[in-house]
């Protein structure tokens, strides 16, 4: 211990660490870290090593195989084309609706519950529902035909749109729930202060609420994006899995479970994780430059 010498005692070593942010509160990380290290890191590195041990060729040949084959490589773009717009839409649509849901009004709880309930649908029911409802003989097309809006059923399933809708149905409530909760943590007094400074609702929103909500939105986007990026069953069920919705997880799935080529599947999955990581790193880097402190609501 640095103790009290004859001169000015130095700060205790605990304080010096604390100044750098290291103190006993970091113990809180330990259970989660131990857990992840014990149950995830080993299996993950196993998978990672596996991806460098292809059934034939050098360590990187499975990666090379993926990138040299346009049918495989194309899955990255196909997946991004689905996941990015869907995640963006989910987050962006959640914001105004959640914004409307602040304050109190009659029926608020009902509307909230209704908006959250689709979260329970699950991919299978959503897929079946989309096929039934939007299919060529489904109610949607029947209504369009009956009202003569179209003279031939509209193709909304077994293509890009089917998967997109399913990503929206399963992803939106998810985004909404998070955004709504993040929003409830922002002190409404701040908006009122902005109002007295002459900000109309629009600018109150863009200048005050939105910036304070941004960190939460970034996280929400990341999570929705990850979910959308790993879209699998719906890409098969309501999409066109050999063609325009052959997403990257399908490629990995086929490698693993149809061709039983686990090293290749691991390589594809690693590529998949890496692409996600790049997008998320961009978003989180942007997030770390935002204000992320107290937003008053709870203090």
């Amino acid at each position, binding site marked *: 211990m640095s103790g009290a010498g004859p001169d000015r005692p130095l700060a205790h070593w605990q304080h010096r660490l604390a100044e750098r942010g290291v103190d006993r509160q970091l113990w809180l990380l330990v259970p989660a870290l131990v857990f992840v290290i014990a149950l995830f890191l080993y299996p993950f590195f196993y998978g990672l090593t596996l991806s460098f041990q292809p059934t034939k060729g050098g360590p990187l040949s499975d990666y090379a195989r993926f990138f040299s084959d346009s049918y495989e490589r194309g899955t990255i773009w196909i997946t991004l084309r689905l996941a990015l717009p869907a995640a963006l839409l989910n987050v962006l649509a959640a914001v105004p609706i959640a914004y409307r849901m602040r304050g109190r009004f009659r029926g608020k709880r009902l509307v909230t519950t209704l908006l959250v309930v689709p979260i329970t649908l699950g991919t299978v029911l959503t897929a079946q529902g989309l096929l039934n409802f939007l299919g060529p003989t489904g109610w949607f097309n029947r209504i369009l035909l009956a009202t003569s809006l179209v003279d031939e059923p509209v193709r909304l399933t077994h293509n890009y749109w089917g998967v997109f809708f399913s990503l929206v149905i399963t992803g939106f409530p998810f985004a909404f729930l998070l955004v709504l909760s993040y929003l409830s943590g922002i002190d409404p*007094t701040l908006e009122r202060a902005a109002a007295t400074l*002459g900000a*109309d609702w629009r600018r109150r929103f863009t200048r005050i609420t939105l910036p304070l909500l941004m960190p939460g939105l970034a996280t929400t986007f990341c999570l929705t994006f990850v979910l959308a990026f790993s879209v699998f069953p719906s890409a098969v069920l309501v999409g066109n899995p050999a063609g325009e919705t052959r997403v990257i997880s399908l490629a990995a799935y086929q490698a693993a479970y149809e061709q039983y080529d686990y090293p290749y599947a691991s390589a594809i999955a690693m590529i998949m994780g890496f692409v996600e990581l790049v997008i998320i790193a961009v978003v989180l880097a942007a997030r770390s430059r935002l204000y992320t402190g107290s937003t008053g609501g709870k203090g």
Partner: protein
Amino acid sequence: MSAFSQLRLDGVSRRFGGQAALTELDLTIEAGEFIALLGPSGCGKSTALNCLAGLLPLTAGSIWQDERRIDTLPPERRGFGMVFQSYALFPHLTVRANIAFGLRMRRLPKEETRRRTEEAVRLVRLEDHVDKLPGQLSGGQQQRVAIARAVVFEPSLVLMDEPLSNLDAKLRLEMRTEIRRLHQSLGLTTVYVTHDQEEALSLADRLVVLREGRVQQIGSPRELHTRPANWHVADFMGYRNLWRGRVAQSDGARATVESSGHRLLGEVVGGLHAGADAVVAVRPEDIRVDGPGETRNAMSATVEVVEYQGRELAAEARTDTGLLLHLRTEQRIAPGDQVKLAVDPQRLLVYPADASAETDRLPHASGATR
């Protein structure tokens, strides 16, 4: 935004659930006036201000700006500036950006925004802190940001909710002067909530005293100071010595009040006839400590507590009849001293006793002061 010549509150009321926080406030504010809302904690001052700002919908009544009804307008269309009791600074914006916010909303030219923001920063002495976030400021610094933010766009009406409560005496005095100066030089109209009577007295043209959501008195500082409308206002305005008695004689303007042995002459406020129950109110600083010879309007007492307060002493003395009196004096007295305490009849106010529970709690001459 729009200047006006008169702002009229007409029966403005606000309830929270079952509880009335503000009841039928009628008040006309002339352009350029400086109004202070004064009253004990929880009396409805902030509520009144919030109603005026448009942040709380009224539960009854209306607000008129000249001939235009404005209580239906949202806050941003009223164009008033406001300093919040809790500051309500934007936590993600720097001091500079917080202050510039109102100007930005008005889309002033960049250069002007910059200039006026700098000016306001100087006004509140925060030159060294412009780039900090609110979370990095001390309490008083935050309060100063809130003030600068509210006045920088020169609103037609400025609402201030205890804007100086977290500042030290010196700075408070300086800011007080600045606020008064701003008010005059920019031709603002100001409604100012404070719990500090001295602040209210020195700043405002007119004071509104609230109690339990109801207006007790509206008047000039001098009126409030010398002639509180009832004993509650007197109590609030610093008449710390209050006791009950019975009117022995009254000519309408002056009355002699008797309470267990003492007979004191004072000014009547409100109607009082002989035999009525009365409440007597005297400020500590209006009690003179005289030599033992003095007898006019005087009581003999024993000094109990003496507190050093700079040049003056604050003391408590108990009269022979058991009444505890607060006084302030420059004389060097000490606990145990026998003194005569005298009050000028103009400084001793006599009120009718109302039938409130609070009245019952006041001491009769023989009882402990609250």
